[in-house]
């Protein structure tokens, strides 16, 4: 599982869509924090946006990524690997990469404006 995970993350990190996602999150949280004089208010409006944006992007991106990886999964299935490991590798790889994008995009401004 770890071996698949490594290469899934290597592939996703260089994906432009994930980079754009992190930048959009960063711009959004930065501007929301700058607009509000009270950081508690900023967190509240950021929560509202993030609650909608993050699940939407995660679901759509994962679907597109898995769909495009169909032939790659075929290659993995023809290797001596358990199917469970292949799915776990993809799942954790996607989760970690998207979580990292969120941490960088929304987490850093949060720490900065606290």
């Amino acid at each position: 599982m770890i071996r698949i995970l490594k290469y899934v993350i290597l592939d996703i990190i260089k994906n432009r869509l994930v980079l754009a996602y992190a930048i959009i999150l960063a711009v959004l949280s930065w501007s929301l924090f700058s607009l509000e004089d009270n950081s508690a208010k900023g967190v509240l409006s950021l929560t509202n946006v993030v609650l909608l944006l993050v699940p939407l992007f995660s679901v759509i991106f994962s679907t597109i990524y898995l769909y495009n990886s169909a032939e790659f999964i075929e290659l993995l299935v023809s290797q001596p690997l358990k199917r469970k490991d292949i799915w776990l590798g993809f799942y954790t790889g996607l989760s970690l990469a998207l979580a990292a994008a969120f941490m960088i995009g929304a987490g850093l401004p949060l720490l900065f404006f606290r």
Partner: protein
Amino acid sequence: MIQFENVSKRFGSLEVLKNVNLDMASGHCIALIGPNGCGKTTLIKSLLGMVIPDEGSIHVNGAEIIHQHLHRAGLGYMPQIGKYPGNLTIGQLIDMVRHLRPDQPIYDEYLIDSFGLRTLQSKKMATLSGGTIQKVSAALAFLFNPPVLVLDEPTAGLDPLSSETLKLKISQEVINGKLVLITSHILSELDDLVSQIIFMQEGRILFHKSVEALLAETKESKISKAIVTLLAKTVNS
């Protein structure tokens, strides 16, 4: 080496494999041919464990393989259309497949060298042409020196020089006592390669014969002509 026993598979109301019985021995290059949609790919996929048959059993080296995964260490598969993660480079992809099989540390890098893939190592998969991707697929299939090779349309999309290299490699591996299973629609290129022919039609094995027997029976000199003659005979009778 590989035995199919009464293998059946249906997708909904469509019966793709009907009671397939096959016995394939090593040291042969076997061509799997038949019209489109006759079940060739399903047969290959059930051997690779991508499709699980509804009935029957498949044995590789005497061991049952349905719902197993370890037998795939002895299989090399070259897909018809390979597609790999676009942001990985050729070198990374080859390294990844090596890491996926840590218990097979002896590599056969002949194809990587003769296809010139070393000079392309740092190219991303997304930027490669169809033929180069085919070369990568072929190199990956042969990398672990597996006793069984499954090649789905191996020379489609390859330039004449590379396809000659690949054919030479295939016949070399057959001499080394491996079992090579090829599907192809280009019958003319099979002539100097294969030793046995399996012809499928509508999910059934029409015949499984050695090339000599087939040629003797139809009194032809080329595989393509022999099959046409044989098919005309079955239609007429």
